[in-house]
C-alpha cells in the first residue's frame, strides 16, 4: 500500500515537473523577443533599447535558460509563485481570483452535462435500436458536432438578444453563469450520452444476469444492483477525461462570454510572455490532472475492488 502511494506521488511529481519544464522551453523558444513583449504589455508603446535591456535584466531573461528556470522553480518549491513580469503584482492572489470564476463554471457545466446525459442515455438504452434510441443518439451526435464558439453565440442570440431572459456578458451575478455553463454542458452532454448508453448496454450483456433473473430478482433490482455499478466503471473514466475537456473548453467559453477567469488570465499572460503567470496556470492544470487521475484510481478501486487486488 505504501509502495502504491509512493508510486503515485512519484508519478505526480514527474508529470508536474515535466509539464513545467516543457512550457518553460516552449515559451523561451517561442518566436519574437520575450523582453519586447513584456515591455510592450507594460508601457503600451514601443520602447527604446535601454528600457528593453532593463526589462530583460529585471525579468531574468539575460541570464540564460537554466538560470531563469532556477529563479522561477526555486521559490516555487516553497510555495511562492512569484510576481508578474508585466504588472509586478504577485501571481498567486490573481490566480486564486481567476480560479474562483472558472471552477464553478466548469463544475456547473459538468453538472448540466450529466443532468442531460443520464436521462437521455437511460431512455436510449431502454429499447436499443428503436426510434427513440436513434433520436437520442442523433441528438447526442449533433451536440458533438457543434463547435463551442458557435453554440455560445447561438445561445447569446436566443436567450440574451432575442428573448432577453439572461445576460450575455460579464460575471456580475449567478444569472451570468447560466449561458456559459449551458454551452459547456451541451458539449459534454453529447459525448457523455453515448458513453453512458453503451456502458448500460454492455453491462446488461453480462453472463451472470440470466442466472440472477432466474433466481427471481426483479428487473428493477437487477438494473439498480447489477447493471448500474458495472455501467458506472467506463463512465467514471470518461468523466475524468471530460473534466479535462471542460477545462479546455472553459478558456474558449470565457472569452466568448467576456467572463474573467483562467481563460482570460492565460490568454493575456501568453500574449505578454508573462512567464510566471503562464507557468502558474500550467502547473495548476497539471496538478489538477494528476489529482483527478488519482481520484479516479481511488474511485475505481471502490467500484471494482478487483483492480486493486490484481495489482497487488
Amino acid at each position, binding site marked *: 500500500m505504501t509502495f502504491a502511494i509512493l508510486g503515485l506521488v512519484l508519478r505526480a511529481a514527474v508529470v508536474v515537473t515535466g509539464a513545467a519544464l516543457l512550457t518553460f522551453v516552449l515559451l523561451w523558444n517561442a518566436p519574437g523577443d520575450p523582453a519586447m513583449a513584456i515591455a510592450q504589455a507594460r508601457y503600451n508603446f514601443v520602447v527604446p533599447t535601454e528600457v528593453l535591456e532593463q526589462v530583460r535584466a529585471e525579468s531574468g531573461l539575460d541570464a540564460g535558460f537554466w538560470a531563469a528556470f532556477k529563479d522561477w522553480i526555486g521559490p516555487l518549491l516553497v510555495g511562492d509563485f512569484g510576481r508578474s513580469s508585466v504588472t509586478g503584482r504577485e501571481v498567486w492572489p490573481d490566480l486564486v481570483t481567476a480560479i474562483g470564476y472558472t471552477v464553478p463554471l466548469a463544475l456547473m457545466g459538468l453538472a448540466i452535462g450529466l443532468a442531460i446525459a443520464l436521462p437521455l442515455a437511460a431512455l436510449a438504452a431502454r429499447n436499443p435500436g428503436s426510434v427513440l434510441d436513434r433520436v437520442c443518439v442523433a441528438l447526442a451526435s449533433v451536440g458533438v458536432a457543434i463547435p463551442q464558439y458557435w453554440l455560445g453565440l447561438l445561445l447569446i442570440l436566443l436567450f440574451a438578444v432575442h428573448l432577453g431572459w439572461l445576460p450575455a456578458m460579464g460575471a456580475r451575478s449567478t444569472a451570468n453563469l447560466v449561458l456559459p455553463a449551458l454551452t459547456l454542458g451541451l458539449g459534454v452532454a453529447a459525448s457523455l450520452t453515448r458513453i453512458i448508453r453503451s456502458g448500460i448496454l454492455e453491462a446488461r450483456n453480462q453472463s451472470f444476469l440470466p442466472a440472477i433473473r*432466474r433466481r427471481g430478482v*426483479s428487473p428493477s433490482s437487477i438494473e439498480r444492483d447489477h447493471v448500474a*455499478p458495472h455501467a458506472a466503471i467506463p463512465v467514471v473514466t470518461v468523466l475524468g477525461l471530460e473534466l479535462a475537456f471542460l477545462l479546455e473548453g472553459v478558456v474558449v467559453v470565457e472569452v466568448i462570454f467576456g467572463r474573467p477567469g483562467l481563460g482570460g488570465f492565460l490568454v493575456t499572460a501568453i500574449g505578454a510572455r508573462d512567464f510566471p503567470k503562464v507557468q502558474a496556470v500550467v502547473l495548476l492544470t497539471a496538478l489538477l490532472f494528476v489529482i483527478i487521475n488519482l481520484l479516479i484510481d481511488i474511485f475505481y478501486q471502490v467500484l471494482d475492488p478487483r483492480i486493486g487486488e490484481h495489482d497487488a
Partner: protein
Amino acid sequence: MTLSVSDLRVERAGRIILHPTSLDIEPGARIGLVGSSGSGKSTLGHALIDDLQRQGRVVAQVPQSPDEALDPLRTMAFHWREAEKALGLNHDKQRRQQLFSALRIEHGDLRKRPWGWSRGMQQRFVIAMALIGSPELIVLDEPTSALDPVVAADTMDLLDKFLSGRRTAMILITHDLGLAARRVSQLMVMDAGNIVENALTTDLLERPKTQAARALAAHRSWLELPC
C-alpha cells in the same frame, strides 16, 4: 406434486433449437440429461425453469460456472440476501448456517466478493443459494465441469446427501455419462433439440436404443472416473 410442462419449444435465429417437448417430473426424481455438445441440453434446462416459474413453481438453477451465477462486484453476503429477498424470505442466519455446513463452506468469508473464494467454494455457494427456498426442482447445468475431479465428486456427494430424503427433484445436465450414471436413476438423451431416449439409467447403459445413446455409452471409460 408432479411438475409438468407441455410443448416447450425454442426457436433462435429462425432455427428450432428445441422441438416441442413435454415432461413430467415426480418429486424427489433424479434425472440425468445427457447428449453431445450443442444438442440442446441447456436450452431445455432454461425453457423448463422459465416455464415452471411462470406456473408459480419454486425451481432453482445452478449454471455451469460460478462466473455465470455471481456478480463479481457484489459480496457473497449481498448475493445471499438478494436470493432470500427474491423468494420473499426474511433473513435467517440459522438456515444459512445449515446450508453452509451441508456444503462445507461454513468458513467462507461472506464480506468477500466471489473472486475472494476458490472456484470450488463459489460453486458450492451457488448450490447452497439454489437450495434456500427448498425448491421443488433444482436444475444443475454441468455444475462440476469447472472444478477438478476430486472437488467435483465431493461437491456432488454433499449435494446428494443434502437432497436424500427431501422432495426436491434434481435434473443434472451433463455430457459426462460417468457423472450421470452414479448420481441419477433416470437418463434422458438429447440429440438435435429432441429427447430421443428416456429410460432408467441401468437399462439405458446396458441396452441403448438410439444412435445418440449408443455413441455416448460407447465411451466406457466413464466407469473409472472418480465422479
